């Protein structure tokens, strides 16, 4: 059961320090990319999940996977607002449902270039539905029926002509920014205004979705089922949390794909660097391997020792990679989401992301060490002692 003492391999790493540093940096760079991607993805997940509510129902066109793709006519909107008994009524007896129009438009960024920004036309009821989740933080709310807009706080520092008091050109109409609001998640990166005025300006005769307050245990599938044979409309109904989760999952997949691909390519490079470093180490220490074997260490003990040394290299690289991304913790950044509009979110280096990265680094170390360690373990003692 005896293995080669660990300090032999640890100290050997320090002795060949330049080769060790090189390998650790190669692994570290890979891990920084991976940890960075995971942290971005975590930031995304938090952005979308933190505000998903189960007592908000979304009605969209059957088959639409996001509100950007959805279209509901005004008649259909009226039917849904009035006909669905699950929708809660306010003190005045009006259904708490609001038709919204959603579209991404190209706007200029402060740092040059353009980006897609989500424009949402809303009805006064929208604010009642969101309650305290949407708050005016600066200026005032827009007056219904006018060309006034309010801007999500996430856009204030990023998009030109979006400060309170600015005029913003949308298509051929000029809108005036009268306030800023903060909301949960993605709403912070949207521009809101009167739904009818924005529809006119953007020449969109249809609405994107109906947002409605329901009781949290309302059976949304049953609502959709009632319209199965209805010729007027066949809505898709889901609660806000499920909707956001579905939006995040496609983003997550994309992130994981890009990040995973990059990490894989860099990982292959790191594995080669590691293998090379270990092969050089074993070549230089052939005589030492011979001594260990002569003393009585078995082939598998030699294998474990050198695999362990490579694992250690990988772990060191993993720690370095994580240290590289830690300073980015909390940094805000923007990207384009699946509805092609600008969203800002924070970089979140969670323990889980760090752990995943370290495990990946350990994997790189092991994969890079297998061939050299195998070679070391297969040498016969006489071969090893003769070449020294």
């Amino acid at each position, binding site marked *: 059961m*005896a293995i080669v*003492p660990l*300090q*032999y391999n640890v*100290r*050997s790493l320090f*002795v060949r320090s330049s080769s060790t540093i090189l390998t650790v940096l190669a692994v570290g760079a890979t891990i920084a990319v991976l940890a960075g991607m995971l942290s971005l993805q975590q930031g995304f997940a938090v952005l979308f999940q933190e505000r998903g509510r189960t007592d908000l129902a979304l009605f969209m066109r059957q088959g639409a996977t996001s509100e950007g793709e959805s279209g509901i006519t005004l008649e259909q909107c009226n039917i849904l607002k009035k006909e669905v008994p699950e929708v809660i009524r306010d003190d005045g007896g009006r259904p708490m449902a609001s038709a919204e129009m959603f579209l991404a438009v190209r706007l200029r960024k402060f740092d040059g270039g353009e980006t897609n920004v989500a424009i949402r036309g809303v009805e006064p009821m929208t604010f009642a539905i969101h309650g305290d989740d949407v708050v005016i933080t600066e200026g005032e709310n827009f007056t219904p029926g006018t060309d006034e807009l309010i801007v999500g706080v996430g856009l204030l520092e990023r998009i030109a002509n979006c400060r309170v008091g600015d005029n913003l050109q949308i298509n051929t109409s000029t809108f005036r920014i009268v306030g800023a609001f903060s909301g949960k998640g993605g709403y912070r990166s949207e521009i809101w205004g009167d739904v009818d005025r924005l529809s006119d300006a953007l020449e969109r005769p249809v609405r994107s979705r109906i947002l409605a307050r329901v009781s949290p245990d309302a059976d949304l599938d049953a609502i959709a089922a009632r319209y199965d044979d209805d010729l007027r409309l066949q809505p898709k109904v889901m609660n806000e949390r499920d909707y956001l989760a579905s939006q995040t999952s496609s983003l997550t997949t994309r992130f994981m794909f890009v990040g995973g691909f990059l990490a894989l390519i860099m990982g292959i490079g790191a594995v080669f660097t590691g293998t090379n470093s270990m092969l050089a180490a074993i070549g230089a220490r052939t*005589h*030492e391997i011979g*001594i*260990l*074997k*002569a*003393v*009585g*260490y*078995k*082939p*598998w003990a030699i294998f474990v020792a050198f695999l362990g040394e490579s694992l250690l290299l990988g772990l060191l690289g993993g720690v370095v990679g994580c240290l590289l991304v830690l300073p980015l913790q909390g940094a805000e950044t923007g990207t384009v989401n699946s509805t092609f509009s600008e969203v800002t979110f924070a970089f979140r280096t969670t323990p889980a992301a760090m752990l995943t990265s370290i495990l990946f680094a350990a994997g790189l170390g092991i994969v890079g060490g297998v061939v050299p360690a195998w070679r070391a373990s297969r040498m*016969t*003692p*006489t071969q090893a*002692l003769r070449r*020294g």
Partner: protein
Amino acid sequence: MPAAIRLRSVTKSYSKGGQTLRVLDELDLDMDAATFYALMGPSGSGKTTLLNLVGGLDQADEGVVQVGDEDLAAMQSSELAEWRSEHVGFVFQGFNLLPVLSARENVELPLLLAPLSRRQRRQQAERALELVGLADRMNHKPRELSGGQEQRVAIARAIATDPQVILADEPTGDLDRDTADAVLEMLRRLNRELHKTILMVTHDPQAATYADKTIHLDKGKLGRIEENATPTGGS
């Protein structure tokens, strides 16, 4: 218990570039237990090869290699490794030690393979180092030791597990006369006081005089075995 060594028609060949070189040819050799042997012969005569077979570092193509009660020919490579850790200690010409480990850690290497507690291991390593007169160099790394001291640490490692057989391949080849004499004296003491069976390869006739008997090897064949009537040093 001291071990005797018995070789019967041992053959060992190496093939190099399609050619087969018969290094040991049907060699028969009997060595008594608790005796100090010197092994001499021209370069390339197969001395190291013979030593490696006796030490279980390599295996014969044919024949019997018996050390104590064990027939090494019948063992697998990992069984041989285990056998080595318990029954033989090696001292090579130079570079015997792992450079990143201290003298004590080097001596502990074979002890890690034995079922010992941490404290027993330490004690046994320290005792071995005391025996070779290096108790005060325990925490030194090999590069902080002289050539002679390095060889003495190697001897300490070879005896740390208290094996019956010590095999030394030109242990004084790199040392000056006085240092060599000290190392040879130490080997002889291990034989006289601890009754180790010792087989030492050497090119130096004067080194051979420390042994009880000198075996001569030439082109894979055994020559005469001399008795050294008056060992040097007079102890």
